[in-house]
Structure formats: structure tokens, C-alpha cells
């Protein structure tokens, strides 16, 4: 196999944080078996092909390369769960990711919860499946909506999301951009209790406070206490109210017109099913001869993964198998950009007020280094100085020797 340089346009494959969307990985090149590629540095400049395929350049395999690189690097995903306590949030998270993240959790009783405010807790878990690594972070919000007076109980949550945006903004504008940690919240699952007749005031207020900061996916929790009729009525009601109050929940992207019919049909069904009515379970029961995740009642067994029982499978497919990347994209492209634009606007207006000059690059002022870092910097400075002096001395000596 000879390496030949083709006059075709060379592509600079720069390492970007926006890796290829999963669905475009489907668009693979046809005959990649006979081609091998080397990634020299960052330039794709080595292509080999058979004599007959002179017309074929071969960059169609880029997705494949990106795929391989990304698989090595691993993915990360931050999911936030919000809702009153006792709606099955932890159970659902455990069911979705087949883990037990909340093993050591201690439930507070009502007295202990008197003075509890809304907290933000993070659990990180590394999951690996077929060689693909996922660093999953679950952000939980215990205490939300539990107090007697829940005025602005979403404030800590919006503050947290803004903080993550700010941190990312700083890192992006900083000097070392190689290993930026992306802690931005990609998706927020909001749990609506099935006991009401639709959205409650606290649900509406929460979603309105967050719909421009994060992708909200509303869910009807503990759906096993509703009959099929009630589920339908509640879903219709919630959909109406979401529209009426102008809440922008996460919208599934439209299918491309060239997708398969089956895919389009699935997509349509998915959209009509929102908000998903879900059930979670930490226990495995025996149903119809199989061991499944479910809940055992005296009157029957609810299977979590049975599509006729609840929408758990649809949620899981949507969240993990088809739209995980889109959620990240929307977070980066829409929510983060909104925040960034807003931030920059504020800063420029502030600067204009202060200095009356046009600063070329509005960057956030670097955070003042703390004492420890300062000390280190000083030490390194001194070391550098010493080494420089030594070097000079050596140079002089050599010079004298030569002479």
C-alpha cells in the first residue's frame, strides 16, 4: 500500500468538542475494508486506495475515525432530576442506568426536614458498555417542593445551572483549553405527581424558570396508580397546560425526510406520547416465567419494561439510545450560547459604562489565584531564575574556553 498524495482537498480535522452526532455515524463509507488511514498529527494527508478507485478520495470514513477517537476518549452526560420527594426519582434513575446510585442514602423524617433547604447533590458513575465509556453525572435536588412555603425553591437549581455555564465560559476563554471539564447540565427530568389533575402552580413556576437554561423533559411519575384512561387524560391535560403557559420543553428534532418509514413512524409515536408516564423499580420479580424489573402487587405485577404498562422503554430509548447527543448539542448550541450572549452583553455594557473604551475581547476577569497557587507560581519563578543564571554562567564559561 503506497501513500500517495492526492490533489483532493485536504481536511483539517481539528480536535473539537463537538464530536459527530451518533446518527450520522450511520453514514459510513462503502468499502472501507480496503483502506487504511493514518492520522498524522491533525492532517489527513495519507490516503491509499486501489487503482480503480482513483475517483474515490476516502474522507467519507471521517465519521469512522471520529467515532474511534471519541470511543477512546469516552463520553460524559449530566442529567438532573427534579421534583418533590417521594416521586420515585432515585428509583427511576437506578432503573434507567441499571445501577444503584443511592445505596447509602438516609431518608430524613419530617422533623429533620423542617429546616432543610433545597440542596444540590451530585453522583458520578462510570459505565462501560461494549467498549464505550460513559461518565454519567446525576444531579439531584433533594428538598425541592417539600417545605410548607416553597417560594422560589427553584432558585438554588437555577443558580447551579448558571454556575456550570459560568465555569465553562471561563474555561473556554482561558488559556488552557485542552481539558475543559464539561459539567453543564444536559438534561433535566422533571417529575410531575400523578395525583393531581394536571400541572400545579409549583410545577409551572419551576419549568418557566428553567426552560431557557436547560432541556426539560417532563415525566409523569409513579404511573402505576393510574388506569389507562386516567393516564391519557392526564397527559392531554399536561400537554395543554404546557402550551397554555408557554413552557418550552425539549422538542424532539424533526426526522430528516430521507429517513426510513419505520423510523419516522417511531418518531411520530414518540412525540405523541409525551409527557412519558413512567414507573421505576429497584426490585426484580418473576413474571410470565421471566425475571424482570417490576413491582409486585396483590392484584398483579407491573413490569417496568413492558410497553403496555408504562412508557419507561420509550423514555430510555429516547434519552440514551437516540437523543443523548442531540440533548448535548442543544445544550451547547442553544442554552449555553444564550447564556454566553447574555453574559457578554452584560459585560460590554458594564465596561462601556466604566471605561468608555471599546475593549477588543470581552473576557471574564481571571479569577484571582488563591494563596496556594500564588506560592507555587513564586517558587517556579525563582527556580526559573536560578536555572537561567546557571545557564548564563555555563555559557560564559564555554565562551571563555573557546577564546
Amino acid at each position, binding site marked *: 500500500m503506497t501513500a500517495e498524495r492526492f490533489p483532493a482537498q485536504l481536511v483539517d480535522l481539528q480536535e473539537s468538542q463537538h464530536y459527530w452526532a451518533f446518527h450520522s455515524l450511520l453514514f459510513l463509507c462503502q468499502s472501507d475494508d480496503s483502506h487504511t488511514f493514518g492520522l498524522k498529527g491533525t492532517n489527513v494527508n495519507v490516503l491509499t486506495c486501489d487503482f480503480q478507485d482513483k475517483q474515490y478520495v476516502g474522507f467519507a470514513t471521517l465519521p469512522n475515525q471520529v467515532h474511534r477517537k471519541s470511543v477512546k476518549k469516552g463520553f460524559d452526560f449530566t442529567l438532573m432530576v427534579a421534583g*418533590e*420527594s*417521594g*416521586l420515585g426519582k432515585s428509583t427511576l434513575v437506578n432503573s434507567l442506568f441499571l445501577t444503584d446510585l443511592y445505596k447509602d442514602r438516609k*431518608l*430524613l*423524617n*419530617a*422533623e429533620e*426536614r*423542617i429546616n432543610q433547604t433545597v440542596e444540590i447533590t451530585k453522583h458520578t458513575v462510570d459505565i462501560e458498555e461494549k467498549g464505550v465509556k460513559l461518565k454519567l453525572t446525576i444531579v439531584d435536588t433533594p428538598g425541592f417542593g*417539600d*417545605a*410548607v*412555603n*416553597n*417560594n422560589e*425553591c427553584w432558585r438554588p437549581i437555577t443558580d447551579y445551572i448558571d454556575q456550570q455555564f459560568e465555569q465553562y465560559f471561563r474555561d473556554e476563554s482561558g488559556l488552557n483549553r485542552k481539558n475543559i471539564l464539561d459539567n453543564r447540565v444536559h438534561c433535566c427530568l422533571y417529575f410531575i*405527581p*400523578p*395525583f*393531581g*389533575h394536571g400541572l*400545579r*402552580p*409549583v410545577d409551572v*413556576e419551576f419549568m418557566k424558570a428553567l426552560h431557557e437554561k436547560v432541556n426539560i423533559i417532563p415525566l409523569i411519575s*409513579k404511573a*402505576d*396508580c*393510574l*388506569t*389507562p384512561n386516567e393516564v391519557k387524560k392526564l397527559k392531554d*391535560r399536561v400537554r395543554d397546560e404546557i402550551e397554555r403557559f408557554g413552557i418550552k420543553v425539549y422538542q424532539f428534532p424533526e426526522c430528516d425526510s430521507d429517513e426510513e418509514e419505520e423510523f419516522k413512524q417511531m418518531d411520530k409515536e414518540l412525540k405523541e406520547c409525551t409527557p412519558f408516564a413512567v414507573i421505576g423499580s429497584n426490585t426484580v420479580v418473576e413474571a410470565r416465567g421471566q425475571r424482570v424489573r417490576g*413491582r*409486585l*402487587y*396483590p*392484584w*398483579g*405485577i*407491573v*413490569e417496568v419494561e413492558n410497553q*403496555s*404498562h408504562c412508557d419507561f422503554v420509550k423514555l430510555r430509548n429516547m434519552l440514551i439510545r437516540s437523543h443523548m447527543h442531540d440533548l448535548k448539542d442543544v445544550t451547547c448550541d442553544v442554552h449555553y450560547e444564550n447564556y454566553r450572549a447574555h453574559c457578554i452583553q452584560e459585560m460590554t455594557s458594564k465596561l462601556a459604562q466604566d471605561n468608555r473604551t471599546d475593549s477588543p475581547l470581552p473576557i471574564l476577569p481571571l479569577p484571582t489565584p488563591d494563596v496556594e497557587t500564588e506560592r507555587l507560581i513564586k517558587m517556579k519563578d525563582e527556580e526559573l531564575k536560578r536555572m537561567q543564571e546557571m545557564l548564563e554562567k555555563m555559557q560564559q564559561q564555554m565562551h571563555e574556553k573557546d577564546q
Partner: protein
Amino acid sequence: MSEIVPPEVRPKPAVPAKPSHVAPPSSGSALLGYIGIDTIIEQMRKKTMKTGFDFNIMVVGQSGLGKSTLVNTLFKSQVSRRSTSWSRDEKIPKTVEIKSASHVIEEGGVKMKLTVVDTPGFGDQINNENCWEPISKYINEQYEKFLKEEVNIARKKRIPDTRVHCCLYFISPTGHSLRQLDIEFMKHLSRVVNIIPVIAKSDTLTLDEKTEFKQRVRKELEACGIECYPQKEFDEDMEDKSDNDKIREAMPFAVVGSDKEYQVNGKRVLGRKTAWGVVEVENPNHCEFSLLRDFMIRSHLQDLKEVTHNIHYETYRAKRLNDNGGLHPISSGQDTQEIPMPIKHTQVISKPTKF
């Protein structure tokens, strides 16, 4: 004279209730023949059937917990306010409202005027501070009304009793523990009215979860010093105590309500049909609705009224009298204008006695 209070009907084998003073041979006069004192029970029964009696029940809880459905199921008829005028899609009101609906239901020749007091808006706002105040106010207003009637010079033969005899408090089946709001409400109102806590929509809990949840709730109520009905301090004798202890162990009842019937094993039962089975409301293995019904209606209905009358109402009355420095507010049946008059006796009204 206050309304005749019907005798307690206990679910015991067919033995007429013993008169409270069984004359043992050693003390006092031995009966030398049959007099017929025990027929008084029959006479009272006849009278009651003619006059009928009142029962006022209040339901409190967040919207959507199945309060109206449960009341309908309890009394096997459409008695909640929803059935009278409102549709199910009413918006959540901005403040707690008190709405009551009355119906007369009859069974076995006995007429009961049942009033269901609903409290829409309770616990539904973002800020629920003091949302129990309208409820507390309402209950005290009913006591005040009764007091005014009692204090009247020309009293009615049968004072209309609008006092709340029983308050069903609906706990949301989170499976964790009581909410802050639940504790606050019960703390403020358990000394004013009989509260019976129930776990609403309990078909969302498995058996294990149910037992754990109930235990936790009981512990929390004890820790906060909240006494629900039947209160320990009002147990009259050992028999009462053992009966009530059994009930206290089983409280709060985990209930499911339904007004639809389905066919199960050839029988028509009230229940909820889901994709994985039918929840039977009256099946004690599925939920504790029948326990609640038996407890509330078949054995303790009269006791609820008595405790309300003899204890809660008396507490209110004593407080009112003390506030007025021992002088009764004698009203002529119309409102306000309390004229303190020089009184010879400390008590002008005789205490309403029960038979």
C-alpha cells in the same frame, strides 16, 4: 334540649347492650322480677329512626388525592360536592375555600343527613403557610353557632348540628414519610376536631412499602405529639382500650376509592382496572378501605359524634366562657351585642346530658 343521642351500636353477637349498672346481688336491691327497663333501648331506637341523625365529615388534602371519590365510595352514593355542580376540571383556587354539600341517605329505615365539607386549595399553592387557618376558623365557627343556639333563652328542640364530627386527612403516598404540611396541619387541628389520617391512592404502594410507610407515619405522629382519633385519653374502659388499640395499630388506613364496578371471578366488585390487574376496593388483601368503613361507620360513628360533642365542643365552650370572664354572652338569637348581666348562678345552662 339537645338532640337525642342514639345508643351505641357495637358489632357484637346478638346480645343487647348491658345497662351500665348491672346490679350485683351484694349491692343494692335485687330485681324480684322482670320490669322491662331494657326496653328503653328499643324505644330509643324507634325515636332515632323517626328523627334521623346528622353526620358531618370534612375531607382535607391536596387536590387529586381522591377525596371525593373516597367519600362517594364510603357512603355508596354520589355525595361529594363534585357530583352536585362542579366538573372535574376546576382550576385550583388561589386560597383555601370551604365548600359543603348535604345529602340525606337512608338505610334500614334510618335516615342520615350527611354533610361533606370539602377544602379545595389546601396545600396546592407554592406558599402554603397557614393554609389550615381557614379550616380552623370554619370549625370554630360551627362550634360558635352551636354555642349560640345553646345559650339562647328559647332554645330549639333539636339544635341543628353543623359541627365537624370527623376530619379525614389525606396523606400523599410518597412512601417516605409525612410532609411538613401534614404535620403542621395535624398539630394545629388535632385538639380541635377528630382527625383520621388515611393514606390516599395507596394502590401505588406494594405491601412492604405500605407497612414501612405506615410505621414511619405512626412514629412521626407520636414524636410530634399528635393524637389522632381514637385518642388514647378518652378510652373509657378496658374493652374500649383493647378495641381502640387494635385500630390504632392499623392506622393510618391505606385506602383506594372507586365508583366503578368490574367483573372479577364472576362477581361485580368496586375497583380500578389497570393493564396488570383489577384493584378491588373492598378486598382486605388489596387495601384497607373496608377496615376504614367498618371503623368509621359501623362501629365508631356514634363515638365520633360523642367525642366531638363532649370533648372538643366542651373545650371550645370552656375557652369561650373563660375569655368572657365567667359571664355568658347571652344573645337573643341575633348576632353580637354581648350584654353582661348580673347572674346568680355560675351556670345558667345545664350541661347537655347524654342518655
